[in-house]
């Protein structure tokens, strides 16, 4: 017990939690925007892969770190646009389209990587984002270590939580976005474009998802590996229900998940001899399912989620 307490009180533990949570913050925010507008985006897993690969490759080709971030976001937006065209004006199955996008985006990324680097045994590395070391603030006790050892991308994720919250709750655009996910007819009656709002939401949401992937290759690691996304996208889909489609709770969910994941890594070194290591590896996925089951009962799904809408048809 003392061991766990010691872990929970350590600065490095919370720094690691925030680091692990960062890609999930991007992913949950992205999924949240899509679903609030009424469209499930199961392309998330593949869009993570595309973001990870494109961001990394752009930097490797000399685009610079922020250039890589931009390329990743654009690539995510492209696959989001594809999903949007299939699910919004064409009104096709959001489940099948999303899974199709995941398969397509993943295979495009893997094929491109393999074609660019046919025979490498160890993947080439880039110089990733470094921790933002702010002179005065970094010296603060506890918070200094937790917050100011993070890279710029973590800061961007935290900033985006605030931006998405503000847009959703304080702007006309946010009201329209939520209405289009609840009652598209009412939005149409007001003369706003249901198609435009939904397509825009999916494109922006997908760009955010791709940033989650980019964080993996440009901040958490410094190279691209096959299978590196490893279900993080699916975890986000579970977390967004846990977060009841709210940005603040999305941040909380991602942080809880990050903390749990950081804890299992540390417990593994403490009591690893007693339990097979795989039990710890399984834990985050089990936790996601538990979070989903707990939240599902009272989940207040956007009312028009999964329901296609056609102009001129009631």
């Amino acid at each position, binding site marked *: 017990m003392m061991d766990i307490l010691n872990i929970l009180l350590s600065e490095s533990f919370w720094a690691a939690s925030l680091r692990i949570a960062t890609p999930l913050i991007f992913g949950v925010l992205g999924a949240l925007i899509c679903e609030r507008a009424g469209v499930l985006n199961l392309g998330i897993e593949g869009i993570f892969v595309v973001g990870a690969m494109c961001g990394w490759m752009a930097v490797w080709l000399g685009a610079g770190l922020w250039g890589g971030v931009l390329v990743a976001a654009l690539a995510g937006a492209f696959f989001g646009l594809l999903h949007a065209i299939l699910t919004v004006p064409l009104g096709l199955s959001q489940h099948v389209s999303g899974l*199709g996008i995941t398969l397509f985006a993943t295979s495009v990324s893997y*094929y491109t990587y*393999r074609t660019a680097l046919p025979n490498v045994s160890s993947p080439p590395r880039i110089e990733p984002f470094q921790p933002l070391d702010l002179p005065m603030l970094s010296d603060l006790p506890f918070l200094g270590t937790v917050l100011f050892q993070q890279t710029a991308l973590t800061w961007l994720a935290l900033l985006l939580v605030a931006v998405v919250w503000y847009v959703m709750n304080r702007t006309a655009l946010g009201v329209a976005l939520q209405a289009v996910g609840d009652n598209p007819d009412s939005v149409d009656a007001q003369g706003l474009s249901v198609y435009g709002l939904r397509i825009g939401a999916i494109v922006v949401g997908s760009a955010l998802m791709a940033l989650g992937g980019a964080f993996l290759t440009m901040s958490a690691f410094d190279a691209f590996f096959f299978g590196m996304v490893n279900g993080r996208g699916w975890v986000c889909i579970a977390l967004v229900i846990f977060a009841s489609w709210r940005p603040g709770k999305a941040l909380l969910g991602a942080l809880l998940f990050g903390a749990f994941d950081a804890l299992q890594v540390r417990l593994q070194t403490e009591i690893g001899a007693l339990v097979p290591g795989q039990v710890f590896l399984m834990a985050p996925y089990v936790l*996601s399912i538990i979070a*989903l089951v707990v939240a*599902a*009962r009272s989940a207040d799904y956007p009312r028009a989620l999964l329901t296609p809408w056609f102009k001129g048809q009631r």
Partner: protein
Amino acid sequence: MIRIEPRQTQSRAFAVGVPILSAVIALAFAAIPLLAAGANPIQAYGEMYKGVFGSVFAFSEVLTRATPLIFTGLAAALAFRAKLWNIGAEGQLYLGAMAAVAIGSGVLDVPGLLLLPLIVVLGAAAGAAGMVAPTYLKTRFGADEVVTTLLLNFIILIFVQMMLEGPLQDPMSLGWPQSAPILDQGMLPPLIERMRVHSGLILALILAGLAQFMLARSVWGFRLRAVGENAAAARHAGINVKRSLFGVAILSGGVAGLAGVSEVAGLKGYLTSDLSPGFGYTGIVVAMLAGLSPAGVVIAALFIASVFVGADSMSRAMGVSSFLADLVVSVSLLCVLVGSFFARYRVVRASTTRAAS
């Protein structure tokens, strides 16, 4: 102005034409990544053709590759018919394979003749168990089965690795994480001498035939389609929706489990954690290309298996990445999805409809 209106009748020509056209478009699309890799597409298609139809052995490899895809394709098609989104065939496949090696490697003292039937039954049961849990969480708590089955795939794969480093590890494997081999009498016999195609294919074809018959002709099939098309109406008509869902969950999971049985007991002989290169996920594409029809699943599985085997052989000959196959498969899924739009709706000029009405 253009307008979209639903078609009055569902044409049979679309049901057959859309998947075929999608397959052709997806294959033609492959020319772009081939050119990007600096390869001559004509030559590449030639190599792929040779890899599939070039010899009896080549085609037997396609049949071998198609076998697990028929199982996982059926698993997806059955579940999707009832709008039960089982994306967990990958995990259920591993559960079936684990059950097969657990029983088949001689732990239980089973008379020789009974071993193979027991492996098949328990492998299917293990796969079914893997689908019952998400269905329970869906019906009891409203937890979305898409997410639970997807996450279970990861959990099960890690569990397999744990078992292969623990209780299921072959003591003779020198620490390598693989299971003990299945005893000879527990293996599915090969179909052609000196080739890898095995009687798992026969089992898959029988299941596809049964599923086709049950869906089209039985009361059970009728209920299943009713639940899938409109659960509320089905409930109103006195169908026990929950029971129907559990029924199809058990079938879907069981068939996916058999994919694992067939791979270990028909092909590999023992279990490793890289048994399946995503057969569960590819099964979804197979089911969609098949229009969720069991007979169609067989044809779609043969097509997708040809793409994989052909691309592998082309890759060896020309040095182009075999991820090309995954690209073709995913594009065919997106094409068939777009095609389903044109099968259901037609695009008309608004002015002409006004004149007509």
